[in-house]
């Protein structure tokens, strides 16, 4: 965990990455939910439930189009707090 190595002594690194981390975690948690939904949907589809096809497409969309945001979030977190904290308040 990047925070453990970089935020203990420099709490601003945690503060600067917190929102990105929250969304990164959110994507992982939602991705896990989709994995569970997909497993059930495949089982029900195998039993002949045709309504499950829609769910499988939505889940695929999530994995292809939304999960990649995790990379952006991770890059932002690991950039750390330097630029975030560099400016004096007057410069804003």
């Amino acid at each position: 965990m990047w925070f453990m190595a970089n935020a203990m002594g420099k709490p601003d690194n945690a503060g600067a990455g917190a929102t990105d981390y929250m969304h990164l975690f959110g994507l992982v948690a939602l991705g896990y939910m989709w994995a569970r939904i997909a497993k059930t949907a495949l089982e029900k589809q195998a039993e002949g439930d045709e309504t499950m096809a829609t769910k499988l497409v939505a889940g695929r969309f999530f994995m292809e189009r939304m999960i990649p945001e995790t990379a952006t979030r991770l890059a932002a977190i690991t950039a750390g707090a330097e630029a975030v904290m560099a400016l004096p308040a007057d410069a804003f």
Partner: protein
Amino acid sequence: MPSYKAPVADTLFLLYDVLGFDRHSNLPGFADAGRDTVETILEEGAKLCEKSFQPLNRSGDLQGCVRLANGDVTTPNGFKEAFKAFAEGGWIGLAAGPEYGGQGLPHTVAAAINEYASAANMALAMYAGLTQGAIAALVLHGSDEQKKLYLPKMIEGSWTGTMNLTEPHCGTDLGLIKTKAVPQGDGSYKITGQKIFISAGEHDMTENIVHLVLARIEGAPEGTKGISLFVAPKVLPGADGSLGERNAVSCGALEHKMGIHGNSTCVMNYDGATAWLVGEENRGLAAMFTMMNEARLGVGVQGLAQSDVAYQNAAAYAKDRLQGRSLTGAKEAAKPADPIIVHPDVRRTLLSIKAFNEAARALVLWTAIRGDVAHVSEDPKERQAGEDHMGLMTPIIKGVITDVGFDNAVKAQQMFGGHGYIAEWGMEQFVRDARIAMIYEGANGVQAMDLVGRKLPRDGGRAIMAFFKEVDGFLKDNAETQGSNRSSSR
């Protein structure tokens, strides 16, 4: 005019097919929560939300709440009757204890109903939601006497509840609270000070309002360690619940605000109001925090609700609105143009909302189940794991679902082109209403800090490690058959 259909089939699919809600049928309250029973309950609740809450959403937004010269506040036409119907149906106390008139069902079922109510009419649903929050606080921290006096009235919906935390100079940093409580020697206190932004602080829907108030007892330490929780009813009740004198608490003004116009947002003035301590002296913030998980879960649900109702209307519009032709040749050649649902960019937008909503609903219900298990399980390990999970997921559900829920309301509005900007279509109301959920119950930036600063490191990272262990286990178990799901693991 916008419409709303509660996603009952989706809720049931998630609860029973995906999440195994009935696995817990050995636990108190869960025995009555079999699929057929819950289906009937959800269908009933859905009907009430669709038929009596939703038709008042736009009219309530237009009319708003009004403060009269004497400090009374009127709510929009129809709100009183709709609230009464909700109360009489037993919906406020769905998850409350039967000993106080509640239905004793798992909170998970209430979370599902709250999604429907919020999607149908967020401003109206808040009166009930705040009452549920106040009920939860009193259940956890009230004395037996307080519980006997207040809970039955609140559960039956003849009194509503409020939460008075925020003051003009402090919202996030509650250690700065100035409102003062002076002991009267008879067990009561007199409270003096000003609270702002108090939702449902004053209204005309019920005969009494039960204010839960954070204040500092005279001589208490500075900062967060000197704050206590009090109950200060608008009308002072006798021990039998009969109504006596009016208490010295009043609504000084209503805020003019961006959305949720049907919910009164009040400046509340306490001028030596009579109040009683709830829980221990100086432990008020801790008391509030124990019920915060559920309240924040409720706000996360508001984000999901606005995202879903906005999506439903955008999807309907996209199938109806004719504009342009499909890139691959006319799909409805007999018509002057194709419906916009043929355009990849429209589909991309709609799918991004849909794919979020279904997983967000799953996350809410999964967490609600774990929360219920934490409340009632007899296995201390299971209880602890449930509590860990609730604590960890609360800032995610509050912060992520309300952030993305608002974005989704904007995306759904975009599907209407210029018409989305026009009030009559109702899409701009979803945007305005969804916006507040990112701010109250702890602004989302503060949720992120709660996650990173408090929830991750707590107990040596036990909660997050348990989560990753579960995800890893699931992925290993399903690695061969469902390879395409593997991308979610990191």
